[in-house]
């Protein structure tokens, strides 16, 4: 019972969904790969949280069911799976090679934490300047941004759900920004807005609209809810911290 053709198509779809690619891209990629491998009657039904793929292989009708529990944004993986599936569709890549390449791609270690934190910190700092901050706000935004991204790793490792992480990070960012502005008065608006910009669910929002327009209503609603809930929890966390500091300093 070994159908490498079906397995590599399923692995491609799984990688796309785990990297926060569109549902339609996962479906299209798997179907194109099945067609290139000459599997008949391929059918796929994908959601942001899992998919089912079935096709007729040499051993008869087979189905693969996958649950996607943890998703992160990995644009490089979406790009590389796209390149692999294009090669497969042109007939330049066999099932065994596609399987090997996909596994190599998945085994590659992700960005080390300090690089992710550094890029988050720089993005936050530059957003702060874009919103009218200056040297002091730039430096504070860099420091707080670095902390906010760094704290994500132990939280994720301990299995804190993504939506709850948004609340904690929003709270932390606003609390630190408010404290910093107490010590060194300046543009709190530019500082805090810059820090939370990279946390906003831009990709989920864009994909939600794309999925909904295409007619993938379940995916669209799921992603829309994901975007809305994380934006609301992020703001709730930040608002809670700002409210708390208002209470403490007026008391």
């Amino acid at each position, binding site marked *: 019972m070994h159908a490498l053709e079906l397995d590599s198509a399923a692995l491609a779809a799984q990688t796309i969904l785990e990297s926060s690619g569109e549902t339609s891209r996962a479906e299209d990629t798997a179907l194109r790969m099945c067609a290139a491998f000459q599997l008949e009657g391929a059918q796929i039904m994908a959601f942001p949280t899992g998919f089912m793929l079935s096709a007729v292989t040499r051993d008869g009708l087979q189905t693969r069911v996958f649950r996607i529990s943890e998703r992160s944004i990995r644009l490089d993986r979406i790009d590389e799976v796209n390149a692999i599936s294009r090669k497969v569709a042109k007939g330049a890549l066999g099932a065994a090679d596609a399987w090997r390449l996909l596994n190599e791609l998945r085994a590659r270690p992700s960005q080390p934490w300090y690089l992710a934190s550094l890029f988050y910190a720089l993005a936050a700092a530059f957003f702060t300047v874009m919103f009218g901050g200056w040297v002091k706000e730039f430096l504070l935004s860099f420091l707080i941004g670095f902390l906010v991204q760094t704290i994500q790793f132990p939280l994720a490792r301990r299995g804190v759900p993504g939506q709850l992480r948004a609340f904690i990070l929003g709270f932390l960012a606003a609390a630190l920004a408010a404290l910093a502005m107490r010590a060194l008065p300046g543009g709190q608006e530019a500082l805090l807005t810059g820090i939370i910009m*990279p946390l906003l669910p*831009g990709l989920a929002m864009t994909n939600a609209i794309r999925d909904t327009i*295409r007619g993938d209503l379940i995916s669209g609603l799921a992603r829309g809810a994901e975007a809305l809930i994380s934006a609301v929890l992020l703001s709730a966390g930040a608002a809670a911290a700002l409210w708390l500091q208002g209470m403490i300093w007026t008391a």
Partner: protein
Amino acid sequence: MDSLIRALACMAAAICFGKLLRQPRSTLVFTALIGLLGYAVYQLVGGLLGFFLSGLLVGILCELTARVAERTTTLFLISSIIPTVPGLGLYRTMMALSENDLERAGALGLETLAGIGAIALALTFAAILFGSIRPFRRIP
């Protein structure tokens, strides 16, 4: 001078954000430029129309670049649109919430939501224009 520094910061922020999301290096220049254009259009026009026009421009440029580079549109879209996303509106909503001013929070929140909706609508128009959103079809 001030707007030059803001423009540079906008491009630098888009690049760093792209690096955070592991965007391939060769696409970073394009997203920085498109991001800056989108942000400039929003600054010039302002309001809901500004969000819509900015989203439309970013969407069209990203679809074009993706076609030329033979890569997926998503790769370009995310860090190009991030400078235009109404972060300030969200911040002001939170401030109003923390001051218990529910009326202002509601108005600001709705305005922010409408801005996000305008961007999303514009991006969708751009995608439909280039036929990158197709209804589900069987691949023979």
